[in-house]
């Protein structure tokens, strides 16, 4: 393992900020793995730390394939992470909206450039990303429709779902989008947590990456093949929203099978405890996402459900 400082930023009153990369193997640039780009993506750094420890062992035992190399960047934004802030510590800009970056531009453009210039020539790019809303997902590989995405390849992670959605204008400055445009086959992996550690879902993400690398002859690793992934399109999912605001009392969790009419959650009055609204499933299906806030605004997408068509026995 070799540790390298990929980018360093001076600060007038703080320690310098260093973005570090951890290299394994040698030869062609096979896969680059990026953890946190935001300061609250604790789980994403945690997953990288677990991967680095596995890669270190694989390297020692000669199980990284000849001529293949791996690089892991656990954290692009240590300055924000150390003060508990999601976006950039001074101007609140989002580094994951600054790619491919610009070496003569503003601070976060320079950070993005410092990272991108080191990661843009890898064959595969894997990013552990997070959603802007608090909540939980079924672990999945997320892809944007860019014309370059390869959903069949994404199934090699063996996660239950590969989720594909239309790219929006603001997506064009993310790491994932720019990786794709520059020829890297890029995947974002979503797990159950962001600003806390969920060990089970971290292990699932680690296994998914190892599974993928094993299938593509980058490492030699005995592992469970995982799921036969199903591709779902963003437009297939059914949004379930609430009309009233209040406490969000969740009854159905992620991966629950629900029937049309099942109660997914209740919204209760935060002062009197009265039930203001029962949130019912409009379809038979599987819960792909649920919001995570204890108190909820009205008109919030609380659940996203994969419709299954036929009624199924609820599993709670």
């Amino acid at each position: 393992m070799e540790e390298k400082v990929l980018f360093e930023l001076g600060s007038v009153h703080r320690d310098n900020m260093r973005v570090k990369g951890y290299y394994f193997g040698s030869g062609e640039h096979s896969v680059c793995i990026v953890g946190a780009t935001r300061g609250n993506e604790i789980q994403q750094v945690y997953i990288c730390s677990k991967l680095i420890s596995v890669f270190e062992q694989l390297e020692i035992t000669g199980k990284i394939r000849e001529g293949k190399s791996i690089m892991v960047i656990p954290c692009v934004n240590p300055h924000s992470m150390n003060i508990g802030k999601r976006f950039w510590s001074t101007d609140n800009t989002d580094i994951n909206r600054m790619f491919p970056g610009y070496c003569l531009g503003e601070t976060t453009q320079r950070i993005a450039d410092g990272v991108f210039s080191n990661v843009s020539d890898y064959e595969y790019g894997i990013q552990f990303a997070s959603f802007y809303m608090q909540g939980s997902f079924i672990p999945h590989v997320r892809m944007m429709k860019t014309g370059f995405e390869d959903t069949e390849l994404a199934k090699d992670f063996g996660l239950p779902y590969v989720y594909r959605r239309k790219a929006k204008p603001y997506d064009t400055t993310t790491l994932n989008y720019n990786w794709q445009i520059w020829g890297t086959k890029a995947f974002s992996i979503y797990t159950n947590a962001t600003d806390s550690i969920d060990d089970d879902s971290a292990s699932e993400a680690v296994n998914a990456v190892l599974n993928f690398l094993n299938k593509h002859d980058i490492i030699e690793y005995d592992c469970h093949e995982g799921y036969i992934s199903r591709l779902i399109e963003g437009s297939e999912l059914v949004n379930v929203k609430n009309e009233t605001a209040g406490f969000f009392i969740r009854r159905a969790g992620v991966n629950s099978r629900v029937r049309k009419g099942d109660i997914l959650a209740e919204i209760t009055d935060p002062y009197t405890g009265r039930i203001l609204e029962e949130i019912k499933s409009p379809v038979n299906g599987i819960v792909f996402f649920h919001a995570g806030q204890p108190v909820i605004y009205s008109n919030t997408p609380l659940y996203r459900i994969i419709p299954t068509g036929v009624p199924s026995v609820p599993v709670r």
Partner: protein
Amino acid sequence: MVQVVASVGLPIDESLMIKKNRLVPENGLSGNEKRISIVTGTHGDELEGQYVCYELQRRIKENYSRLTGIVDVYPALNPLGIDSITRGIPAFDLDMNRLFPGSENGSMPEYIASKIISDLSGSAAVIDIHASNIFLEEIPQVRINELSKETLIPLAKKLNMDYIWVHSAATVLESTLAYSLNVIGTPTLVVEMGVGMRITKKYGDQLVDGIFSLMKELGIWNGEIITPKEPIISEDGEVSFINAGNSGVFVPAVEHWKNVKKGDHIGDILDPLTGEINETIHSETDGIVFTLREYPIVSEGSLIARILS
């Protein structure tokens, strides 16, 4: 008449409301009147538009009989942000001006964005007032995407601003309020002026004069107006950027909106710990400083100035 454009229930005994005030001619509406919409407060730390909303209505009310069309004033597109001194949308930490045109079925910010678009749609002109941010001071200017320049430059020239910047198109900017409205045929001008968290009264008065001049052009006002300033109009190629090469405390040596020559001293980046100068900044071109760093602490890459050649 105050109207609610969008409303969302908040969990603990509060409603979030996007409000507008509509002023109509004294004698009522015939149905053929044109409408101008003044919007501001998308970013909660930009306050210059607050004074403009007040002053515009004060002057209209002084000569109400001169109003011949509809004036809609939206002082706070992001009320939670303004109230909590937060640039983005609190609780989501999202830049509201990257969410348009929004979605009726989306989360709270997207839902509100879609309601705002449908309410503004059909205006003869929308003026979207911004105030830079807390880091930079801007001269009164209109910013126009090159894709809309044919329609917008004639309207922008009425606004009595010092400068019109026609900037190149960028995909990421397709999520702004102005782009989303221009693309559906509602002409929208973005005004940038002053600095975040402050009100620069003279800039506000200058813009209000310009809004009356545009209202007259559109047939919404038949009272007295000033002759608008002849603005400088430029495209990207004539704008140069100066970014900090080091971190430290920036102390300017030039004044905002003044001419500089190539090699002139723009300012220094100081190190308060050692008493040394980390960087001395000089202009690389002749021109006018139309953007100048206001917030002193800088990191490598922080924008120090923009100079118009």
